[in-house]
């Protein structure tokens, strides 16, 4: 035991360094015994502070990109900055769910009002932008809005935790931060994609539908949805997607419901193709199939399909193209683009297995169709 002996020598002799080390050791021991939790809190606060600075950086850069793009594409007469700042503070209050009867329709009404309000605001900010650009700008501003909200909520809990010096508030915040940072990075990436009108991972379903309906006559149906009657393997397929190439998701649920009604419920299969979240360890672009309505978002569209399918006993199948949350809102990866062809093969196989010649079917490509024509 050389070390303790040498250190003890420090006390016994004139070894100044030994004294200093001994003193430092006792000080550290005492400080950690009484202030361990507080030191841990300070370390966590510092970590949260770093992420908060990164979030502020992303929020500010997003806002700058939004202002520059609106000035460039919209050519407004005045400075749109003040209006953009107002937009970034926009909020929507969800409907009362205490009495759940009719909540879907009330939610849909609120979403419609929000959508109209956003579009009107964008048109006022960017009067020279065409329809595609208006849709892209609207989505870009929504991404900037999301970054602003994330920053403000994290800042709220950071200040609150710092004020109370509560280890538990700070700890919860620090534990959830990696997920929040990942989401924020995804929004920042989405913002750039919307600015340039680039196709994003979420458009995987729309891409599959676009590939199927290419070369056939399209008609515009329910809000921003296009439908084409496509003969596939001797069946008549109603292929639908949101109208591109602007950022658009449309109302695919309403369109599917309408097609079922128009055909008096004589639809032998409804197939919904969408991007689905992958689990860690799975590869992006993997294709999986199942049953149910693969439509994300606020679930109003999903509800309509389920209701229509139940009324006419239409079997609903789903095909998903797997990707993570970052890929869903970032420019489309090659693996996801290539997965479109595999999804088409699966669609054809499902049609052959589950329907007869002469049947009518619905194929809905769901997702944001930015950067994807038809």
């Amino acid at each position, binding site marked *: 035991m*050389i*070390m303790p002996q*040498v250190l003890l*020598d420090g006390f016994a002799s004139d*070894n100044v*360094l030994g004294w*200093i080390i001994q003193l*430092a050791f006792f000080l550290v021991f005492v400080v950690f015994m009484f202030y361990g939790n507080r030191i841990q809190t300070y370390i966590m606060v510092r970590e949260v502070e*770093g*992420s908060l*600075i*990164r979030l*502020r*950086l*992303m929020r*500010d*850069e997003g*806002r*700058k990109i939004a*202002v520059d793009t609106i000035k460039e594409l919209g050519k407004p007469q005045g400075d749109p900055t003040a209006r953009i*700042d107002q937009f970034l503070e926009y909020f929507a209050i969800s409907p009362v769910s205490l009495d759940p009867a009719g909540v879907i329709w009330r939610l849909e009404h609120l979403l419609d009002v929000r959508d109209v309000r956003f579009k009107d605001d964008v048109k006022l900010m960017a009067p020279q932008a065409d329809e595609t650009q208006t849709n892209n700008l609207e989505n870009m501003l929504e991404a900037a809005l999301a970054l602003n909200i994330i920053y403000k909520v994290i800042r709220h809990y950071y200040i609150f935790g710092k004020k109370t010096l509560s280890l538990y508030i700070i700890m919860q915040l620090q534990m959830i931060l990696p997920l929040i940072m990942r989401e924020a990075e995804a929004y*920042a*990436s989405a913002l*750039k994609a919307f600015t*340039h*009108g*680039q*196709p994003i991972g979420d458009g995987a379903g729309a*891409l599959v539908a*676009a590939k199927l309906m*290419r070369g056939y006559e399209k008609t515009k149906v329910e809000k921003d949805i296009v439908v084409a009657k496509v003969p596939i393997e001797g069946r008549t397929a109603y292929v639908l997607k949101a109208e*591109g*190439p602007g950022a658009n998701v449309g109302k695919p649920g309403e369109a599917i419901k309408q097609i079922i009604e128009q055909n008096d419920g004589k639809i032998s299969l409804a197939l919904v193709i969408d991007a689905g979240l992958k689990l860690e*360890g799975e*590869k992006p672009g993997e294709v999986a199939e199942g049953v149910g309505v693969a439509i994300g978002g606020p679930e109003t569209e999903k509800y309509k399909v389920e209701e229509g399918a139940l009324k006419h006993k239409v079997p609903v199948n789903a095909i998903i193209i797997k990707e993570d949350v970052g890929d869903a809102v*970032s*420019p*489309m*990866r*090659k*693996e*996801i*683009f290539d997965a479109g062809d595999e999804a088409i093969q699966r669609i054809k196989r499902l049609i052959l297995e589950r329907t007869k010649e002469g049947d009518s079917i619905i194929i809905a490509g769901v997702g944001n169709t930015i*950067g*994807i*024509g*038809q």
Partner: protein
Amino acid sequence: MGEKMSESVSQERKISPIFLAIVLVVLLLSLLAIYQGIEAYMNNDLSSGNLFITMGITTLALLTYMVFQTRRRVLRLTAGMPMQPLITTIECPKCGMKNIRDFQRGDYIFKETEQQCPKCNEKMNIASIYREVKEKRKEAPYS
């Protein structure tokens, strides 16, 4: 809001005085330990010399690591949002000839471009737009 951007970056890049003080004190102590170690060697006290030299060098190494880590953290936090390069593939619908270029604003999948096919003079279409991601890590054994 916009003016605050550079402010927040410089705020994060600024070195904390407490951090600087800790670094200086630890640096001083480690140098002292090395000096003490050398002195012990000169007095033929090998055990004390080994201990002090080991302590000094380890502390110096840890300190350097800490400073580099802090610097890396600052760079990571203040890094901008990089633009991901996208590839646009233009294809001739008649002969299938392909042309690859960088994405340009206004490109979208299935757009008919003004570019004509050098072989058959047909107008070419945009067949695909995507980004290629190079995976950094090797395939995990559990995948």
